[in-house]
């Protein structure tokens, strides 16, 4: 894919459609409310776990002090 002002010779750094695209079922599932409610709960739980892992760690008392 190129912009209309960019000739094809520059396609080295221009995205091409070489990627999967969603099927009609996938698109429908993205808006299917019962499924999305479940995903909302699941994503929130995963994010909360990720946030808890991101909390500061305590300095190891045996580690050398910062200069």
């Amino acid at each position, binding site marked *: 894919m190129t912009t209309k002002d960019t000739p094809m010779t520059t396609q080295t*750094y221009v995205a091409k459609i070489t990627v999967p695209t*969603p099927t009609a079922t996938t698109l429908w599932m993205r808006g299917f409310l019962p499924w999305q409610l479940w995903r909302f709960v699941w994503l929130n739980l*995963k994010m909360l776990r990720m946030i808890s892992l991101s909390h*500061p*760690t305590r300095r190891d008392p045996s580690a050398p002090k910062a200069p």
Partner: protein
Amino acid sequence: MARVVILGAGIAGHTAAMVLRRTLPKEHVVCVVSPKPDYNWIPSNIWVGVGRMAREKVVVPLAPIYARLGIEFIQASATEIHPAGNPNHPGPYIVATPTTPGAATESVEVAYDWLINATGPKVRFDRTPGLGPDGGHTHSVCTDRHAVDAATALDAAIQRMKAGERQTLVVGMGHGTCTCEGAAFEYTFNVEHELRRHGVRDLADLVYLTNEAELGDFGVDGLVIRNGGFHTPSSVFAGSFFAERSVQAILGAHVQAIEPGLIRYETLDGVDHEQRYDFAMLLPPFTGVGLKAFGAQGEDITDTLFAPSGFTKVDADYTPKPYEAWKPTDWPSTYRNPTWKNVFAVGIAFAPPHPISRPRTSPRGTVISPAPPRTGMPSASMARAVAENIADMILGRATEPERLSSMANMGAACVASAGSGFWAGNAVAMTMFPIVPDYTRWPGAGRDERFTFGEVGTAGHWIKLVLHHLFLYKARAKPFWWMVPE
């Protein structure tokens, strides 16, 4: 009595101030020096920038909150730091210029025992001729007011399309060294959604112009996302979304100059190009805000506090080294200046040791490589850690910063909305852990696959809405605000 001064009241500075005030007894002073009277929840500027949210919904006046909490607030722009004081002013202090309209503009001196630099960046529209809304030809969503202007211009383009005129809309990065690609990604798909909502999508050529060498780099060297039973590179994940929404992408681009209706840019292969546009939202590169530091005798000691980029030096390993030699331990964990032990920097204000994305230059030597992102969730997380460390040292519970909060041990969530409406909205929700990849702990992908995932759907849009309301609730310091996690 200790006096903690915080420069800036963005996500990092405001978090640090509130945590310190909640932690320290009242005899200690917490003082915020910020040039703006409002807190801006910047992630929602995207919705302001497409006209789907009023500016007032993303800003919170700071003075009433600080008055209620007992935080001193000086509306001023810091210009100098004197970490050793001087003969007339024995203790450390900063110099700031008041920015309250109509008030005196004489500089004020603000003494401190502990200083947190959370000024955020200076947006450098001047690095690209013609870039930016102030004297340039493009728009921005960096500030709430920029976003309002962008929404007005976007609406004008939509009206022209409704009149039958074909339009080219370009969204992305206005320089080869920009960061915050996630924001441009999100704005692109919000614009795309607006075009469809107004029934003019077929009259628009929507172009994403970026300094990323691949889609989905996001300044973090890309991700390997767990999605749909596959380990999927973010280039494929993001590329799929571009293909689905028919958004064209120009990758590895450094914008050289912008003229009315024309963007000139160089790509990583060293070739010059031109891109026509009718509406453009291009983000600027960032530097530090340009603070100067002076010693006790008035000598310039800026280089002890600041890197050449203007960002504050902290406990990072700044030894220049090639990409292959980068280590997670290069990244800071206490955000303390190595020379001045009572000075810290959080959020965008700290100097990163190096980028996260692989550095790239064109054959002509032009750097075209994203700078590392350190906004939003990571900046709040490190601000809390620094605030708690300072409180511990003031209260005698520690002699050194004991809480370590490195971006190499910290995750981030990026929820890029792509449409509004409670039931019909859509968003790309992505998380990564950690931000800085660690190929020793997680060979191959560099990140923990359990917490590096992404998916598209209405659920992501709800998460974005929840984050908007939750963080503004927290910013207003409403009851139990401190229970909202960073």
